[in-house]
Every structure is written in structure tokens, then in C-alpha cells.
């Protein structure tokens, strides 16, 4: 556990150095995660995704991006051992590889706060799939098959707003907080809710439209879902359906930051794919 905490501190320092080198406002807090630590957690992962988005935005804006090698010496200085000469009388860390379970389909477990994604589809760990019962067939109600596997990934946004909070004149809305909002029953319950309520629009299956819609929404301090908006559009009818279902979501357990309930903005990718 101590090693995991040390790893966490080192990785946090690397993130801080990247942010500093690129003039990215980066406010992080002391880790309060209890229990066995593997060196990373959803909060840490969210910080990495945030930095990636900020760096991408800088690059697109024509600004210089400094990442390569800026923390090259940090790992060695942190006393993790040299690449060729571990200190004497120390146990080598080339230890047994933990068995990896064979899984056919990656799945997201835990609550919404565990859900982290990126814009790069190839790096996303899970996808919400919706397909009509009879793909590309005329007629039918377009309802997703209950037996189909559905996996959800959400994304913590922060693209073109100040890093961790934006002030809309009334309430502060965060993009990352210490305790992210939780859907009642966790991710599996969220999956089921979407599955039970999402409808592939009638008549659209003939067009075989498939792809990803991203919906941004805010979970306020009461846990209510507010202001769902399309962040990435696919088709007006599918966008409308995604907005409709997000609007049906029950209250979350609100996020918390610095010991207080907080408004938090979340993103939920929904993939419409024909099978």
C-alpha cells in the first residue's frame, strides 16, 4: 500500500510539472482515498485526461506544447531505483505478474465517479451500445434489445473552460471534484436505466445511422440532472433521443468538494451501433 501511495505522489508530481511547463492552471488536492492504492484512482485519471485536453487545445491554438522528457529525472530522483543498478540489499521489483482474467467484453463497474473516458475512441474502456432489435429492417419499434450487452463510459469534461471550475454567475460548476456524483445503484444501474429507456427512433434504422452522441449535463448540489446539452452530435433524431433519456435520469448522489456539496458537470457518450 505504501508503494502505491509513493507511485501516486510521483505521478501527481509529473502531472504538476506538465501543467507548469505549459501554463495550465492545475489545482489538485491531497489524496484522501482510503484503502489499498495501486498508484492511481479515478480522480488521478481524470486529472490526466484534463491535462491531455488542455494540451490538445494549446496545440490546436498554435501554442508550443512541452511534454517530452520534462519529468525524465523525477522517477530516478524519487528513489525508485536506477534502470540498471538497483541499490544493494533491495528486493527487485520484477515480481510476479498478477493473473489477468480473460474477459470477452470490457465492462465498467462502480459508480459514475469511476467513469472516465477520452475523446479517442480507441482508448475508451467501455461503450454504451444501442442497436435496434432488427437492424436496418423496416418497421419494428426500434427498441433496443434488452439482452444486448450495454456498457457505459462517461467523460469528465473541461474543454474550453477554466480547469476545475466555471462560475456562471450563480453556482460554481466543477468538472472534477474530490467525490464525484454517484448514480443510485452504481454504473450497472445506470446501464440498466439507459437500456430500459433509450429508444432508437422509428424509421431511422433504415438509414443505418450509427455512431456516438456525447451529452453534457450538470449534477447540482441536490443531485438533480440539469441542462443536458449535446456536446457531440450524430443525427438530430438520435441527439434528441439521447437528450430525452438523460433528462429522465433520477437524482444522483451529489458530488462533494472540500467537504461541501458541489455542482459537477459530466459527459456521457452514447453509441448507436447497428449489429
Amino acid at each position, binding site marked *: 500500500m505504501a508503494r502505491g501511495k509513493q507511485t501516486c505522489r510521483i*505521478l501527481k508530481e509529473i502531472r504538476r510539472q506538465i501543467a507548469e511547463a505549459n501554463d495550465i492552471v492545475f489545482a489538485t488536492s491531497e489524496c484522501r482515498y482510503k484503502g489499498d492504492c495501486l498508484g492511481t484512482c479515478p480522480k488521478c485519471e481524470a486529472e*490526466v485526461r484534463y491535462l491531455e485536453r488542455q494540451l490538445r487545445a494549446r496545440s490546436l491554438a498554435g501554442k508550443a506544447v512541452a511534454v517530452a522528457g520534462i519529468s*525524465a529525472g523525477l522517477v530516478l530522483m524519487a528513489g525508485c531505483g*536506477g534502470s540498471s543498478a538497483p541499490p544493494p540489499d533491495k528486493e527487485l521489483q*520484477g515480481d510476479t505478474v498478477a493473473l*489477468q482474467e480473460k474477459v470477452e467484453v470490457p465492462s465498467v463497474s462502480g459508480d459514475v465517479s469511476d467513469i472516465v473516458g477520452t475523446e479517442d475512441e480507441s482508448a475508451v474502456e467501455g461503450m454504451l451500445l444501442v442497436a435496434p432489435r432488427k437492424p436496418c429492417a423496416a418497421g419494428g419499434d426500434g427498441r433496443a434489445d434488452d439482452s444486448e450487452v450495454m456498457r457505459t463510459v462517461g467523460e469528465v469534461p473541461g474543454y474550453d473552460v477554466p480547469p476545475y471550475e466555471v462560475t456562471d454567475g450563480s453556482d460554481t460548476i466543477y468538472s472534477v471534484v474530490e467525490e464525484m456524483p454517484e448514480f443510485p445503484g452504481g454504473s450497472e444501474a445506470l446501464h440498466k436505466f439507459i437500456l430500459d429507456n433509450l429508444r432508437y427512433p422509428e424509421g431511422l434504422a433504415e438509414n443505418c445511422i450509427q455512431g456516438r452522441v456525447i451529452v453534457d449535463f450538470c449534477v447540482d448540489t441536490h443531485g438533480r440532472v440539469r441542462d443536458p446539452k449535446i456536446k457531440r452530435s450524430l443525427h438530430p433524431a438520435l441527439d434528441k433521443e439521447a437528450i430525452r433519456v438523460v433528462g429522465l435520469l433520477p437524482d444522483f448522489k451529489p458530488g462533494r468538494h472540500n467537504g461541501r456539496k458541489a455542482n459537477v458537470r459530466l459527459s456521457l457518450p452514447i453509441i448507436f451501433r447497428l449489429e
Partner: protein
Amino acid sequence: MVSVSVSMNGQKVKMIGIIRHRLSTDGDGVTTLAAFHGCPLRCRHCLNPQSLGGGDGFREYTPDELYAETSIDNLYFLATHGGVTFGGGEPCLYPKFICDFRKLCGPAWRINIETSLNVPGEWVKTLIPVVDTFIIDIKDMNPGIYQSYTGQANDLVAANLRLIVGAGRQGDCIVRIPLIPGYNNDADRAASRSALEELGFSRFDLFTYKIKSNDHGTGKTNMQDTERDSSADS
């Protein structure tokens, strides 16, 4: 006979594990260890015995799938000159997979391999241009000791060491020379080091296997209890 998942034309290979956030233990910087299933050796105190046998229950990956999974740490790799370390098992059994992976990740990531080098020379030749660091577990340079511990001859190892020197890559190698209780001693390890220095290698990692006796009178040790205690020198 070695059970190998063949990597051809993007076909899947079995991995016994993928471990993120390794800090200077498998190469410089932050690395992810990707361990293949399959090995030509049968070392008496294998550190990862799950890499042997049929490989049932392990997940299979194409190079694209592995790249997608490891990309999550791209920022750390770039910032620390880290990357992916292939181990196992024996990664040199999958030269095409690793070459395809290099095409996906490009030159920015470091690719290291932890290997016994006990594979056909053509496979090592394929890997030389795409691998940044070879971390070679030599066991012992003495053929008799090597055979006794691993169950295999070390002719291929010696040939591949010369191959690497011939390619001018000896400076990119870290040779691990273990002290294996019951199989070799300090004099043997010193002899191994001298032989390697004569070949042109200069970076060594000397360490000692610390084996817990659990034989219950059978004379066999529990491989899962094998540990490493480094008394390093370079």
C-alpha cells in the same frame, strides 16, 4: 514443446498480465509491463509460472488492442521517456507483434524487452531495430549450469549475444546475472560477468534469488515463493 500463440497478420496473442505505472524497474521512466504467455525455458524457480502451460483463461490482444490499452499512460511515457516493456514468458517469441506495436506507437515511446534470448536468431534480428533496451536474464553463462537450471541449452543465447554486439547494440543492454542457490555461486557469477565483458557488455544487474524452502521433504520448492534480493553492481 512450447505452446506459443502465433502472431501473424495482426492475430491475437495471449498476455498473462499488463501492469501500469512501473517506475524505473523495467526500463527508464514510467513504463507499462506487458507480459506474454509462452516461454521456451522451464526454469526451476520461474518467477511467472503462469506463463507456461496451455494459457487458458488469459486475454488475447492484437497489437492495436494493446496499443489502445497502453495509450492511457501516453502522457507519462512522453514526460518521463518511458513506454512499454514486454516480458513474460518470453517476448522474443512474438517479434512481429512487437514490430507491429512499434509501428503503432511510433518513436516517442520506449520499447524494452525482458528476455532470456533463448530464441532463433532471426527473431532477435527482427527486434533489434525496434527495441530500445534489452534486459537480458542470462541465468548463467556456463552451459552445464544453464541446462541444469532451465532445462534447455544456451547455444542460442550465446549466438544472440554476439548478434547484438555485431549490431552495435551492446550499450543498450542490461544483463541480469542471478546468484541461484543450489545452481551457481559467486565464482560462477563472476565468470559469467567476465565472459560477457569480453563480448562487449558493460551494464550488469547482479542479484540473488532468495528462495523460500517449502518442500515438506519432497525436495521441491514452491515457485510462487521465489523472491529476488538484489546485491547489485554495475
